[in-house]
């Protein structure tokens, strides 16, 4: 039968749904179903004017059909019969009924409720790990409502998030400009300096779409990275920088702009009126403040006097030295000085601080010619168009079409803060922060409301955005964390919202199980651990240790797609209905992750295109069953009413709330959610139910393009960007140090040094060299840097077991082995395709050498996260992962609680 005949058959249906397998989504698609069998995925062409990527989906979505019918799926609930756990133990899984599975889990949970939700250390007895940068929540139906009904849950057992995310970008980006993820304003930007940002692999459909358009219209992107990634391939220029030296590169750009370019090339008005640049800094490094109001002072050239920062009609001085009647307040409200005090504008402090960081200085560190850095700095200035404006939706806004973007490993671990700061300062110097063409935050995750970025920009002290900091003052700081990774005690910037648990030092939960450092309650194993769409046994660091530790967990419940390395330690496997089999409504549009800037906002439905395979069950049904069996139905329904399904069910003039004591079916629950979503979109005018959403797939309303930019909100609220000087962070670091030392906790002292008013270059690569030396190696015997890079085909998709994904991914270099510089390989007698051994002083892995010119001679690259030993199909790949070579250690943990995917190794032909 040919295609047209199939199209004509009445048994052919096309259903609209979404793909949110990675954080760069969600994207919209259609599933073609023939006689009840899903056969094809297509873009949602009907949404091409709504979705900022033309209604298209990336390669991962085309794996969904094969994913649905994968014969290796777990299709019945199963229980473990072998009480011994460990990589070498056969779990002995046997099928059981859903009733038995749910009764077993519910009995455990009821037992916990009788004992108490917290254990003897004060940690939640129930833990849950979800991977994928928060995307599993778009597949787990109302399970979040169950967790909310339950109470305290430890969601800080790292499965990759925290230590392997864009951590400094998340924490500092959100702190400085509500940019949990940060992006160039690609549709308007003309010049991008991209330090390792691999947007063509990790930016999703919208990122690829926008950058392709930008390239075609002439945007120049300079890709600064040790290997020529797919993004480097698509860039105008590749600068092969030595790993982990990006901060020096960026510092040198700032130096050129401050010490070589005329001042007038900077956006001096922006600096004076929209940043902390004119705030006077006192002898102790803290702002000089008006004694009565404690407001920071600036020097007003109009009045010839120091005035509070919010005085109208000022001409703030950016440079010079001034004396003022003031007080200087240090940590814990300590008064450091009072009276006539000398003050220097923060901008002048910056100028003096950056003098040492010339391109010539950076050249030796970065292995990049000084002339290249100087040229890039000047090109950045040339393209910035300081003074230009643009008309947009009837508003006149500054236009600065230049940006710097940062990738993973650059923006996390030691040096990450310095890079994030330098990136944001570069934008600030030309007035290119949060304006058309410039550097933008895309979304917020630490400030509420999570779906309203601009509304989250609430005023805080000193004329800045309200900082989402955990307390460090004596009255409120506590050495007794709410969860095991201790984010609230150790990482003020992690805030305390729903996402904070995943943004702390998530490796602490694993590391401290076998030895908790002084001052923290002993880290314990959770009584029950839920796992969904995550595989920390593969995706975390020091994976052999993680496997050993999770094997000691007493009761693990894994929502399981196939067998894998983490659910190898499970006691119960639950088959959840997959992407094409289950039901959920999610928010779309506005500005979301990475490069998802929409001009619409609303909701999209994921609907069952086909019946669940085997006994797989929709997550919502599982959540409702558990709520009933544990006796939490009323709280569960109340949580859904409150918005745990993504939409509050009661609004200004509508109420679709669930009755507290009734167990609703999946379709009933989502029918209520759909009606509330319709009402929210139309201010109560419409209340379309589930059937309408199934037919239409999505509904949206306009989202103003100008709402992509925070700058107008800052102006409206009279706020300044807290840049370049970091007085508050310095104070917070000092206070945190005092609190820790008061409790005998000195093991975080190295991290405390990261709290600086202006960051200094440190030998960041040396941190990883030193880690290798401490394991017994030397720079000569372990001369290579091993790095990783995103694979669009695999990233976040839980599709390592997909035949098609492997097949198509292998068209891209690096999916069959370790990428190595050809010249370096020749010197070691290694030929293309040779089996090589990559080793640290402690461990080694083997891979086939794939020789390329596009990588530094001192660098190796292992793409993605493989090394599977239990996942069907994937375990036969023969592809290792750097994760088993990377250690977890305090010394490699930065102050935000993160590390980086980098390790020093040796490489040689593997013994036959």
């Amino acid at each position: 039968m040919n295609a047209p005949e199939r199209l004509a058959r009445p048994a052919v249906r096309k259903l609209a749904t979404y793909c949110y397998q990675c954080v760069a989504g969600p994207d919209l698609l259609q599933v073609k179903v023939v006689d009840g069998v899903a056969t094809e995925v297509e873009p949602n062409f009907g949404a091409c004017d709504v979705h900022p990527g033309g209604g298209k989906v990336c390669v991962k979505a085309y794996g969904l059909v094969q994913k649905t019918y994968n014969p290796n799926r777990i299709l019945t609930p199963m229980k473990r019969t072998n009480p011994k756990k460990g990589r070498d133990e056969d779990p002995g899984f046997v099928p059981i009924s859903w009733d038995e599975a749910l009764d077993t889990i519910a009995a455990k949970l009821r037992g916990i409720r009788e004992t108490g939700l917290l254990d003897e250390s004060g940690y939640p007895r129930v833990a849950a790990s979800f991977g994928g940068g928060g995307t599993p929540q778009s597949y787990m139906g109302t399970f979040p409502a169950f967790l909310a009904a339950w109470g305290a849950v430890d969601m800080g057992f790292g499965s990759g998030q925290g230590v392997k995310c864009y951590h400094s970008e998340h924490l500092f980006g959100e702190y400085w400009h509500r940019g949990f993820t940060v992006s160039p304003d690609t549709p308007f930007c003309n010049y991008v300096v991209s330090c390792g940002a691999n947007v063509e692999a990790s930016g999703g459909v919208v990122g690829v779409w926008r950058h392709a358009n930008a390239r075609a219209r002439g945007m120049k992107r300079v890709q600064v990275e040790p290997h020529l990634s797919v993004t480097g391939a698509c860039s105008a220029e590749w600068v092969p920088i030595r790993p982990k030296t990006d901060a020096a590169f960026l510092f040198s750009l700032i130096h050129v702009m401050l010490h070589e370019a005329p001042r007038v090339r900077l956006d001096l008005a922006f600096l004076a009126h929209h940043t902390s640049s004119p705030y006077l800094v006192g002898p102790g490094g803290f702002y000089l403040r008006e004694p009565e109001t404690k407001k920071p002072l600036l020097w007003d050239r109009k009045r010839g006097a120091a005035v509070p920062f919010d005085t109208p009609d000022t001409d703030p001085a950016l440079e010079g030295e001034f004396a003022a009647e003031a007080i200087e307040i240090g940590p814990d409200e300590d008064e450091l000085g009072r009276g006539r005090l000398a003050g220097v504008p923060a901008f002048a402090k910056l100028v003096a601080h950056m003098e040492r960081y010339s391109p010539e200085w950076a050249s030796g560190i970065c292995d990049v010619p000084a002339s290249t850095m100087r040229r890039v700095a000047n090109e950045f200035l040339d393209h910035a168009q300081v003074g230009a404006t643009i008309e947009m939706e009837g508003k006149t806004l500054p236009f600065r079409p230049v940006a710097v973007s940062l990738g993973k490993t650059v923006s996390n671990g030691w040096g990450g803060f310095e890079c994030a700061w330098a990136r944001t300062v570069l934008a600030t110097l030309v007035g290119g922060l949060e304006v058309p063409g410039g550097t933008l935050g895309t979304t917020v995750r630490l400030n509420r409301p999570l779906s309203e970025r601009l509304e989250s920009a609430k005023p805080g002290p000193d004329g800045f955005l309200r900082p989402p900091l955990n307390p460090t003052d004596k009255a409120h700081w506590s050495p007794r964390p709410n969860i095991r990774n201790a984010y609230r005690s150790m990482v003020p910037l992690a805030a305390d919202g729903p996402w904070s648990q995943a943004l702390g030092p998530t490796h602490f939960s694993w590391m401290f199980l076998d030895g908790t450092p002084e001052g923290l309650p002993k880290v314990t194993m959770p009584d029950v651990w839920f796992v969904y769409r995550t595989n920390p046994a593969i995706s975390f660091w020091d994976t052999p240790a993680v496997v050993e530790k999770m094997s000691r967990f007493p009761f693990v419940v894994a929502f399981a797609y196939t067998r894998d390395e983490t659910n190898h330690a499970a006691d119960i496997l639950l088959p959840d209905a997959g992407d094409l089999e289950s039901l959920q409504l999610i928010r779309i549009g506005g500005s979301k992750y990475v490069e998802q800037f929409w001009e619409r906002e609303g909701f999209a439905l994921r609907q069952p295109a086909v019946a669940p395979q085997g006994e797989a069950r929709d997550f919502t049904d599982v959540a409702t069953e558990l709520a009933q069996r544990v006796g939490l139905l009323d709280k569960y329904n109340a949580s859904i009413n409150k918005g745990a399904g993504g939409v509050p069910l009661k609004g200004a003039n509508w109420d679709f709330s669930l009755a507290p004591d009734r167990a609703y079916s999946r379709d009933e629950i989502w029918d209520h959610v759909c009606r509330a979503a319709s009402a929210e979109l139309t201010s109560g005018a419409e209340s379309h139910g589930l059937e309408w959403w199934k037919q239409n797939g999505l509904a949206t309303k306009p989202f103003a393009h100008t709402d992509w930019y925070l700058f107008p909100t800052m102006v409206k609220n009279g706020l300044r960007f807290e840049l370049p000087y970091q007085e508050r962070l310095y104070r917070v670091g000092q206070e945190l140090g005092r609190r820790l030392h008061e409790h005998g906790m000195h093991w975080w002292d190295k991290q405390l040094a990261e709290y600086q008013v202006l960051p200094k270059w440190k030998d960041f690569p040396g941190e990883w060299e030193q880690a290798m030396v401490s394991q017994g190696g030397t720079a000569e015997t372990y001369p290579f840097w091993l790095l990783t890079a995103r694979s669009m085909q695999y990233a976040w998709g839980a599709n390592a077991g997909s035949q098609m994904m492997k097949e198509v991914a292998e068209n891209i270099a690096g999916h069959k082995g370790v990428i190595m510089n050809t010249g370096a390989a020749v010197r070691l007698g290694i030929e293309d395709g040779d089996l090589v051994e990559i080793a640290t002083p402690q461990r080694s892995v083997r891979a086939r050498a794939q020789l390329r010119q596009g990588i530094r001679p001192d660098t190796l690259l292992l793409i993605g996260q493989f090394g599977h030993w239990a996942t069907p199909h994937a375990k036969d790949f023969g592809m290792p992962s750097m994760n088993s070579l990377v250690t977890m250690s305090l010394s490699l943990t930065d102050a935000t609680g993160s590390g980086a995917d980098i390790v020093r190794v040796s490489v040689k032909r593997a013994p036959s």
Partner: protein
Amino acid sequence: MTRWAMVIDLRRCVGCQTCTAACRHANATPPGVQWRRVLDMEVGEYPDVKRAFVPVGCMHCDDPPCMDVCPSTATKKRADGIVTIDYDLCIGCAYCALACPYQARYRTDRVQFAYGEATASEEARLDPARLGVATKCTFCVERLDAGIAAGKRPGVDPDATPACVNSCISQALQFGDIDDPESNVSKLLASHQHFRMHEELGTGPGVYYVWDRAGG
């Protein structure tokens, strides 16, 4: 006249293989059979090295070498430029596969499935006529013809456009009639520098590669 052609913008392609997967989907090709795929190429020597992603497949040549060598007349060329294979006539000799300078042809001799046994979707889409014969990119000719018959415009309306073009997330792949000066592909070619692969062979490929603006 109409000459269907594909124009590929190399500035846009990111090598994501979405087209590869979409083609496999739309045409239900077996594992390893990629009528559309994207090459990952590198030229130069460190540090002066360039990497490029180049989508390839059947070039639907004006003078297709595969047709010349076909002993059974299974390979034909339509008036609109599309090179076709009649599976009923093809004897599977594979001369065409050897003659094709673009390595665009496949022959699958036995049934293959992703995981050994057929899944429900594979079973639903199995086409025994494709066993033991030459196969290749068809420019999704059935979709094209059906779309045209329904009044759709190839290269503009998804229902009349090849699946790879529909799927492309960077808009690198464009399809249309290069005999129509107003078509999207004609305009793209007129305003950009371009080449065809192995032009020197005189095959007259129907796939063009754009790499910069005219005069750029």
